[in-house]
């Protein structure tokens, strides 16, 4: 696969295929960030080689959606199809949550409220080294329930880490319910603005809008950046969209086929 194949269709098709093969859940979460991942890996991240020490860093803080990133790593040619097909198999490094042993994964995550802290450290390291590399961190809206997130938010603003770009996947859902019911995270933009971040609201399924917005982030402005990506949980598969249960469930044969048909129709 070549870079031009990193499309929303390809990412979603791999998510469905691998989730079905492995018979695992977290499908809705992966579909939610599929277009964000396309924007990052097709156009935004400057990673000529995953081993380049001065590459941009990317942290998937909402680690449970790692399948979407594995799809991108495969489409970039950094992991093989054989490796991709070990997803959730015994002995595989491709688990539900990402491990840094895998080429292309900068930090292991899985425990919510941790990735942004490590990403802020990565941005600080670049700042100390006077490198122009950037750090991107993708968090979930429910992850902002974690107090540790706001420790990093304060730090990044205070230290003017404008090389730090955070994307929040604002799909309004969390494990046991909708965020407005579990722990209201409304006025997300206002929260981040109040902490001194440069805030941009975007359609989290509009790849070109996200690319343009991130391209225009001034990495010398003195403010860290937050892209609030308004997304639909389970985006692209009608029966999964905005449905809590697809945080957990694997697909039946019939559900898989319907999902693929719907994704194929967008090709």
């Amino acid at each position, binding site marked *: 696969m070549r870079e031009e194949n990193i499309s929303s269709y390809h990412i979603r098709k791999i998510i469905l295929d691998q989730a079905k093969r492995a018979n695992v859940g977290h499908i809705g979460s992966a579909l939610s960030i599929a277009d964000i991942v396309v924007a990052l890996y097709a156009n935004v991240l400057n990673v000529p080689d995953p081993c380049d020490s001065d590459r941009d860093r990317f942290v998937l803080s909402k680690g449970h959606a790692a399948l979407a990133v594995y799809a991108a790593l495969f489409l970039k040619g950094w992991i093989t199809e054989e490796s991709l097909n070990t997803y959730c198999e015994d002995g595989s490094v491709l688990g539900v949550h990402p491990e840094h042993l895998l080429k292309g994964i900068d930090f292991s995550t899985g425990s919510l409220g941790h990735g942004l*802290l490590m990403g*802020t*450290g990565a941005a600080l390291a670049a700042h100390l080294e006077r490198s122009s590399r950037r750090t991107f961190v993708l968090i979930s809206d429910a992850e902002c329930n974690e107090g*540790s997130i706001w420790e990093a938010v304060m730090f990044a603003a205070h230290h003017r880490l404008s090389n730090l770009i955070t994307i929040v996947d604002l799909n309004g859902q969390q494990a046991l319910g909708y965020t407005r019911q579990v722990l209201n995270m409304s006025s997300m933009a206002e929260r981040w603005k109040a902490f001194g971040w440069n805030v941009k609201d975007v359609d989290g399924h509009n790849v070109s809008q996200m690319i343009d917005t991130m391209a225009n982030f001034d990495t010398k402005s003195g403010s860290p950046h937050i892209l609030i990506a308004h997304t639909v949980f389970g985006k692209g598969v009608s029966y999964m969209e905005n449905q809590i249960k697809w945080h957990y469930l694997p697909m039946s044969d019939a559900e898989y086929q319907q999902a693929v048909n719907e994704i194929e129709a967008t090709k």
Partner: protein
Amino acid sequence: MRGAFIRTLAELAECDSRIVLLTGDLGYAVLEPFSDKFQDRFINVGVAEQNMVGLATGLAEAGLIPFVYSIVPFAVLRPFEFIRNGPILHQFPVRIVGIGGGMEYGSNGVSHYGLEDIGVLRTQPGITLIAPADYEQARSSLLATWDLPCPVYYRLGKDDKNVVPGLSGRFELGRAQFIGEGTDILIITMGSIASEVASTIEILYTQGISCTMMIIASMNPPPVDDIEEALAQFRLALTVEAHYIIGGVGSLVSEVIAERGLPCRLVRCGVKVTPNGITGSQEYMYRAYGLSAEMLTMTAIQAIRELKC
């Protein structure tokens, strides 16, 4: 210890620009030898220990060697999961520096005590654990371990004046240090309470009981062979630690005795109950929890009597 440690760290930073120091808003009149000299490599992250460890993980990924500094429970217990999932699981060279192991923070109360830090961290095979006995050993242990490729925890006392007689700053990773050649009791200890043990041994000597002191500053990797070899020479051993008796040096020695089938009676001296809220100086707390030299002496004499029965 903390003063010697920071001064030594500043010496190292002179030669290696990878060293950075983060503090969780603590270290007044301690950190200046570093912070004054390396202003661009010193960051007060604020009162945010979880973030401090997360930041250090990100810094270490980029090739830096970050030291994070706070009082023991805030350095270890608050951010424990961040230590586990960060430097330990990534095997990054983050250094956690905890000040005031045991009850050194005296009347500040139990929130500031380090009674389980070694026990908690000893559950993690992937972190080196160093608990120096005095400031000379704090310096030598830092010089021996600062550039290890993996994470390290340093449990440091506040005392920068007294030394443990006969230790002379000796340290070797994975080994224990011995003081004296007594034959009645082997007393095994870690951390700054070693000076209390030294006083205990002096008192016991006046009563005709001769002891050997074994200092374990390298709690991980543990000096298992040294422990086994020493225990083989004694019928009675005491462990002494300013720590709960579970998880620390008493547990380590128990494991060696059990796993290697050694015929040695062990008495573990440490904190055995949850502190009840009554506070005082470290000396008072040592007396309250049976860890003063006088009370350790009584424990040792009682143990000898029981051994002879």
